[in-house]
């Protein structure tokens, strides 16, 4: 029986984990920073005490390099996990992820197209975001064509649009000049070293949770089927439209910030569901926090594992995600 106390406990625990992961992300790196210096950096007192220079370098590294990157990782991991959980309810399919409807495909086409023409970073982000929105609108419009809106129709439309985007991405990669290929590949795998400002992702995360949480019991019913939900008083069509828009926006913002990081949106909602059940009132905030923790830690590994070289974080989330997911699949044949 779901109780509010248990939910709060789970969320509190994950929030603490989230804080811990952020502290680790701020402390770890080629220049190790002590927790005390992290405190100085965050609280804004720059007094360098006896060690003078070292401390102020550490403060600078934390403030202008590690903090924005860690926050971007946390926010995007949380957005992807939230969007994944929402998509799984929307499609009533535990195998759905935020990219299944072609959002990352559209973003990839936009971002790589901008890179192909050597446009500045801001326009690459802009291209990713417009590509994501264009793919979303295309899928939504096509799937709604007949007025009826079944999961199968939506899923098929999304998968086909994603396949089309994949072809365009392959085309861009094959005609792109050598010196731009590396950046494109990193973008496709997800990479935080050129991450945009974390502010849009953080705002979107707050907005997403604020918009989704009031409807989380309605979402529980939607997961059981349109008929059941409608009978019990859920405005099914409006809710599904809202969930779709929200998941698409969350995914678009995340992909714009970090590139197409894989597996967070698929694996995290699953892990959380296995641990605490499928009550969206707990699942949505818990998945968001767990997704933030995973991507923050994965990105910390990505920039420290073979330092000074950086790995694309998407490679790490996939390397972690694939075995975990396969293990879950073999362990619970019911899903």
């Amino acid at each position: 029986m779901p109780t509010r106390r248990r939910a709060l406990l789970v969320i509190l625990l994950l929030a603490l984990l989230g804080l811990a992961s952020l502290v680790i992300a701020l402390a770890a790196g080629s220049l190790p920073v002590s927790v005390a210096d992290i405190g100085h950096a965050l609280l804004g007192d720059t007094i360098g005490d006896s060690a003078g220079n070292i401390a102020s370098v550490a403060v600078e590294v934390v403030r202008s390099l590690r903090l924005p990157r860690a926050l971007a990782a946390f926010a995007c991991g949380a957005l992807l996990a939230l969007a994944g959980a929402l998509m799984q309810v929307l499609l009533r399919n535990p195998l759905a992820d935020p990219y299944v409807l072609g959002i990352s495909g559209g973003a990839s086409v936009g971002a790589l197209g901008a890179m192909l023409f050597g446009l500045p970073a801001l326009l690459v982000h802009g291209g990713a975001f417009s590509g994501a929105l264009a793919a979303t609108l295309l899928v939504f419009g096509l799937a709604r064509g007949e007025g009826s809106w079944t999961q199968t129709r939506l899923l098929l439309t999304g998968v086909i649009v994603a396949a089309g985007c994949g072809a365009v991405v392959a085309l861009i990669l094959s005609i792109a000049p050598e010196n731009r290929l590396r950046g494109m590949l990193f973008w496709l795998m997800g990479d935080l070293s050129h991450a945009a400002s974390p502010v849009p992702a953080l705002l979107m995360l707050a907005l997403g949770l604020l918009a989704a949480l009031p409807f989380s019991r309605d979402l529980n019913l939607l997961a059981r089927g349109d008929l059941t939900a409608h009978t019990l008083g859920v405005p099914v069509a409006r809710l599904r439209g809202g969930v779709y828009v929200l998941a698409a926006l969350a995914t678009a913002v995340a992909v714009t910030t970090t590139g197409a990081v894989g597996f967070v949106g698929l694996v995290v909602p699953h892990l959380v569901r296995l641990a605490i059940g499928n009550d969206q009132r707990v699942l949505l905030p818990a998945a968001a926090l767990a997704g933030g923790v995973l991507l923050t830690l994965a990105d910390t590994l990505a920039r420290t594992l073979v330092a000074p070289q950086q790995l694309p974080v998407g490679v790490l989330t996939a390397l972690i995600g694939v075995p975990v997911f396969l293990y879950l699949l073999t362990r619970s044949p019911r899903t």
Partner: protein
Amino acid sequence: MTALLSVRELEVNIGTVRVAAGLDFELQAGQRLAILGRNGTGKTTLLSTLAGLREPEAGTLLLSGESYAALGLRRAAQLRGLLPQGQLDAFQSTVLETALIGRHPHLDRWTWEGREDEHIAREALAAVDLAGFGAREVHTLSGGERQRLAIAALLTQQPRLYLLDEPLAHLDLNHQIAVLELLSRRAREDGVGIVMVLHDINLALRHADRALLLFGEGRTLEGPVEAVLTVDTLSRLYGHPLREVRVMHDGGQRYFVPG
């Protein structure tokens, strides 16, 4: 007194197939109505129209004197419940959680299920012989147990009008009778209305007060079971000759058997 369900000049179509035309009937509190008809005549479509889940092509439909539009989704969900035909769950869930979904229309947005709701759900599970199943995963239940769980979720909803699509599907004989007796008791003691799609004429005869026959092409017949369920109408309904048997030591109870 306002009828629980009032249907006037109702027209229902599925695509080009006419289910009902000019259908008129009323269901009072405490009455049980059985809907009978061949496969594909639109029994399920009619039931979802009565549940307000789809618009009728014409006519009016009043639940406790109000239209579904005036009631709104939430009030409607407090007044009428629907047992759909076999629903598959995509996600795992326990039996108690599944029964508790019936509380949704009774809870405010931020309110969680409390002790009282759990009590109602556990009573409902016990009423369908699923006491002690609360912590079981739904996926581990048999088809008949799942059907009883769906009925328990409907009981947990505590509606005034029960709309049931083949409530006896997958149930063994003892549970078929137990469910019909449970519904009859609710009608008698709590004054709820029951509308159920049945395929067993003899059970309809014993456990319903009224019957609605769907002949196809929009032709319908509604009335008290004694008047509506006859050899003539039923043979016409199913396109197969039937015979009537009276069992004397059963108080002269009528039974229909295929001829």
